[in-house]
C-alpha cells in the first residue's frame, strides 16, 4: 500500500471538490479499501440526499406549477392595478382617501404634529429669553459707561459731539458761503 491514510480534508475535497472538473484520484485511495469506504460513504450520503431533492421536484404535478403561476401573476396583477389607480388619482383625492381609509392613523399623525409644534414653541420661548436678557445687560453697561471712561475717551466723545453740533448747524452757516459754493 502506498503512503498514509487520507486525512479528513482530503476526503472532503474528494467528495466536495472546490475546483471545477474531475479531481485526480490519490494513489493511496486507489489501493486502500478503508479510505475507499470512507469516501464512498460520504459520497453516497450526499448523492442520496441530492436524489431525494430532485425526486421531490420531479414528482410535483403540473397542477402545482400552474397554481403557483396563477398565484404569482394574481399578486402582480393586483399590485399593478393599485399602482395604476394611484397614478391616475390626483394628489388631493389620494390624500383625502388615505385619511378616510385610515382615520386612526390620520388623527394620530395630527396629534403628533400638534405635539411637535407645541414642543418647539415652548423650546423657542425658552431660548428667546437668552437674547433678551443679553440685550438688557448691554443696555445697563452702556448706561454706566460714562463713569468708567478714561480722560482720552472723554475728549474723543467731546470732539464727536462738537462735530455733530457743527453739522447740525450747517444750514445756518450756509448763508455765509460764497454764492458759487452754495
Amino acid at each position, binding site marked *: 500500500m502506498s503512503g498514509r491514510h487520507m486525512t*479528513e*480534508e482530503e*476526503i*472532503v*475535497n474528494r*467528495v*466536495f471538490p*472546490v*475546483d*471545477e472538473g474531475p479531481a485526480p484520484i490519490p494513489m493511496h485511495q486507489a489501493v486502500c479499501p478503508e479510505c475507499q*469506504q*470512507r469516501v464512498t*460513504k*460520504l459520497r*453516497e*450520503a*450526499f448523492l*442520496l*440526499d*441530492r*436524489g*431525494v*431533492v430532485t*425526486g*421531490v*421536484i*420531479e*414528482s*410535483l*404535478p403540473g*397542477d*402545482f*406549477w400552474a*397554481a*403557483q*403561476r396563477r*398565484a*404569482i*401573476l394574481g*399578486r*402582480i*396583477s393586483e*399590485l*399593478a392595478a393599485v399602482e*395604476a389607480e394611484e397614478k391616475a388619482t390626483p394628489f388631493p383625492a389620494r390624500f383625502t382617501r388615505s385619511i378616510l381609509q385610515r382615520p386612526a392613523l390620520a388623527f394620530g399623525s395630527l396629534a403628533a404634529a400638534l405635539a411637535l409644534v407645541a414642543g418647539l414653541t415652548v423650546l423657542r420661548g425658552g431660548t428667546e429669553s437668552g437674547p433678551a436678557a443679553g440685550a438688557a445687560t448691554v443696555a445697563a453697561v452702556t448706561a454706566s459707561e460714562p463713569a468708567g471712561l478714561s480722560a482720552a475717551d472723554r475728549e474723543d466723545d467731546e470732539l464727536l459731539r462738537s462735530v455733530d453740533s457743527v453739522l447740525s448747524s450747517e444750514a445756518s452757516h450756509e448763508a455765509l458761503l460764497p454764492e458759487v459754493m452754495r
Partner: protein
Amino acid sequence: MNDLPGESSRAADPGRRERESEILGRVRAGDPEAFEYFVKTYQRKVFRLVYTLVRNAAEADALTQDIFVKAWRAVGDFKGEAAFETWLNRIAVNAVRDSVRRRKPVVSFADLAAAEEVEGTDLPRAAEPTDGTSPERDAQSRQIRRRIGEALEALSPRQRAIFVMKHYEERSIAEIGAATGIDDGTVKSHLFRAARKLRQKLEDLR
C-alpha cells in the same frame, strides 16, 4: 453591457438575452402579463434552489412566489448588465437568507421525512428513495439524510446557499459568485469551510 463574468452559457445565450430584453421592455411599460414568460421559464429553477435550501415544500412555494413578486417590483432597477436568471438568483438567495434569519422554519430543516407532506396544499410526499434490499437499509438511508439535513442546517445561510448551488445545483463558481455578489476566491473559501463543517458533522458515518 457585457455579461457578468462567469455566467453560464445558458444564461448568456444571446438569443434569450434579446428576447428577454424585449419582454422586460413590455413589463416596464406597464404590461404585467408579459411577466408570465419569466415565471414560466424560471419557476422550477427558483423553486428547486429554494426547496434545497429550506427543505419544506410549502415554505419553498411561498418564498418562490415572493421572489417573483419582488423581481417584478424591482424590474425597473434591472439594468440588464447580468442575465435575468443571474439577477433572479440573487433575489432568491437574498430572500432565503432573510427568511432563514427572520424566523425558524415552519418545520425543522432536519426533519426531512415528514416535511414534504403539508396539510392544506396539493404538494405530494417526497419521493423517499429505497433500494428495496431491506428495511434496515432504508432506515439507514433516512438516518443519513436526516444527518445531512442537520449538517446543512448548521451552516450559515450564505454558506448553505453557496454549498447547495455548487453541489446540488452544479453551478459554476462564477455563477455562484454572480448570484451571491462575492468574488470567486471567497466562494471557494466558503465552499471549503462548508464541506469541512459538513464532514465534521458526519464524522461517524465512516
